[in-house]
């Protein structure tokens, strides 16, 4: 039972724990300061502004899951009942403090974090510590709250052809590990594998001190380290089961899935790992900007090769993205639209790709480099930026993701490097996935790709 006065007192205490003024003026750098507190790797940068963000980045995304659906389940279970507080109370307290709670997962990481007023840092560090080490995994919470959300994600996934194609392309390219679907692609996760017990075991591996890092934006490094020491003392020291995944290897191939609503086609080839990893190639980011597809300026298709190539199909969505992971990467060209549009333009997209291997115009290359750098720095300016990449880099390679360095390395990219990347991609097997009306959607062979 909880009396009103007890609640008020507790909230007040957490508010009063620490008060400090506004941050020092802008430093103008995105460099992360790295340290260790309570045996946990921490990184932070004190950007100016009244809002701070912290995140607990655990190396426990779909790549590392021991059974399908666990990463998704743990993501949805974040901020539920702990031994000390109920989920309702966590929600209400964070609402009162004006914070917002974040919980996402990617192929490699599970990000649990919060955005808040700078002054409330201790409260949210304590909350994250509670989520990590004191969450109570109960069957009825699974049944009533978590599994319905996982089911909804499953349905959303099946309704979105582009997501299906991207997921399929990853599994073609990397098979297991990075190839695991990021959202549940079938009902087996929640009918077969996802239970309170399996989730608790996974949490004990994911939330051990050696498998996560705490990353802060807009928080003072000394403060973060102090409060981490205070609250994360009782987190599990070593994982129940070491979550590992073998070094990713690129395979490639073709997959075609028929689907009644929507048409998507994704062409992918091996790209760059994240800057903290071994096979970092900044030219992948430049190539993604050069191929592009999406215009950065209004009322114009833009300079990018793919937006020129697909000018006849203005309603089709084309986008190139360099997906980077800790030890491998995938450059994806995603097309989404009507089946006839994709059929008519997919060939031109591949021709544009082949033309890059031959010749890149100087002007386009300059524009692509500028755009790639702009995107990287713009990304770095967002409050949540690079939280995940930094955390992952720290856990795996003991290096943070420094956005300044990344921007500098993009400056060093030459045309030859980009040409070489494309040549290698065309010589190797591509990963091609088509989802939708298979009568119209072309085969990779017809497009002139090797699979």
């Amino acid at each position, binding site marked *: 039972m909880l009396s009103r006065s007890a609640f008020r007192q507790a909230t007040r205490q957490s508010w009063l724990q620490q008060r*400090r003024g506004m941050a020092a003026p802008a430093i103008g750098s995105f460099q992360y300061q790295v340290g260790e507190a309570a045996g946990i790797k921490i990184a932070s940068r004190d950007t100016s502004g009244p809002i701070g963000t912290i995140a607990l980045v655990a190396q426990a995304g779909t790549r590392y899951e021991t059974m399908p659906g666990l990463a998704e389940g743990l993501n949805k279970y974040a901020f539920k009942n702990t031994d000390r507080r109920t989920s309702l109370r966590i929600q209400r307290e964070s609402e009162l403090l004006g914070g917002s709670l974040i919980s996402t997962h990617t192929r490699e990481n599970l990000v649990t974090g919060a955005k808040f007023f700078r002054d409330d840092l201790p409260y949210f560090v304590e909350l994250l510590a509670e989520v990590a080490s004191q969450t109570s995994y109960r069957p009825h919470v699974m049944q009533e709250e978590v599994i319905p959300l996982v089911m909804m994600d499953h349905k959303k996934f099946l309704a979105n052809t582009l997501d299906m194609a991207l997921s399929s392309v990853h599994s073609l390219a990397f098979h297991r590990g990075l190839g695991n679907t990021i959202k549940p692609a079938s009902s087996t996760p929640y009918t077969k594998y996802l239970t309170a017990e399996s989730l608790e075991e996974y949490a004990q591996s994911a939330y051990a001190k050696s498998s996560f890092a705490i990353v802060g934006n807009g928080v003072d490094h000394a403060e973060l380290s102090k409060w981490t020491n205070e609250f994360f003392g009782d987190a599990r020291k070593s994982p129940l089961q070491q979550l590992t995944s073998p070094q990713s290897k690129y395979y490639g191939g073709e997959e075609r899935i028929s689907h009644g609503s929507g048409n998507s086609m994704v062409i992918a080839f091996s790209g760059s790992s994240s800057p903290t990893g071994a096979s970092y190639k900044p030219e992948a980011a430049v190539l993604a900007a050069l191929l592009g597809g999406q215009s950065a300026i209004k009322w114009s298709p833009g300079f990018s090769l793919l937006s020129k190539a697909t000018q006849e199909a203005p309603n089709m969505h084309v986008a190139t993205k360099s997906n980077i992971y800790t030890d491998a990467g995938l450059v994806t060209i995603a097309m989404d639209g009507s089946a006839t549009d994709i059929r008519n333009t997919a060939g031109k997209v591949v021709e544009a790709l082949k033309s890059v291997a031959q010749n890149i115009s100087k002007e386009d290359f300059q524009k692509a480099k500028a755009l790639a750098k702009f995107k990287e720095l713009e990304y770095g300016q967002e409050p949540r930026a690079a939280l995940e990449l930094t955390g992952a880099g720290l856990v795996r390679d003991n290096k943070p993701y420094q956005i300044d360095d990344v921007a500098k390395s993009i400056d060093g990219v030459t045309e030859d490097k980009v040409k070489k990347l494309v040549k290698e991609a065309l010589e190797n097997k591509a990963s091609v996935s088509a989802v939708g009306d298979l009568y119209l959607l072309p085969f990779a062979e017809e497009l002139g790709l090797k699979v």
Partner: protein
Amino acid sequence: MSYPTLAPFIQQRPWLMRWMRPLARWYFDNSGYRKLGLRADDLIPEESESVQLALKRLPPKEAYDRVFRMRRAFQCSLAHQLLPQTEWTKADEDISYLEPIIKEIEAERTEREDLESMIIKKRTSASTKGGH
């Protein structure tokens, strides 16, 4: 609480507990449900939201056993018979399996009501220099 009880009051006083225990045992044995193979928690009225939710939260095995006990008791009742003495519920089997769940659900409800009727005060002046 799902039903009115003096139990917590008595449990807090060991001398009273010593007095009452034989009486309680006599009362439970005579109330008859054990002779039909039921447990005390089987008798909690189901017609309330919290009990309905608690029943849903029972582990599958518990839920199955509960239904089995009830059907058996119902058959006995129809036949105007008691179970053979070997099948009566023993005192140590008569554990409360549902009540902790009901209490938890009621605690959740009370917490929600408490939070809903909470009076929020603005931060004191000491903290306003934070700038928000």
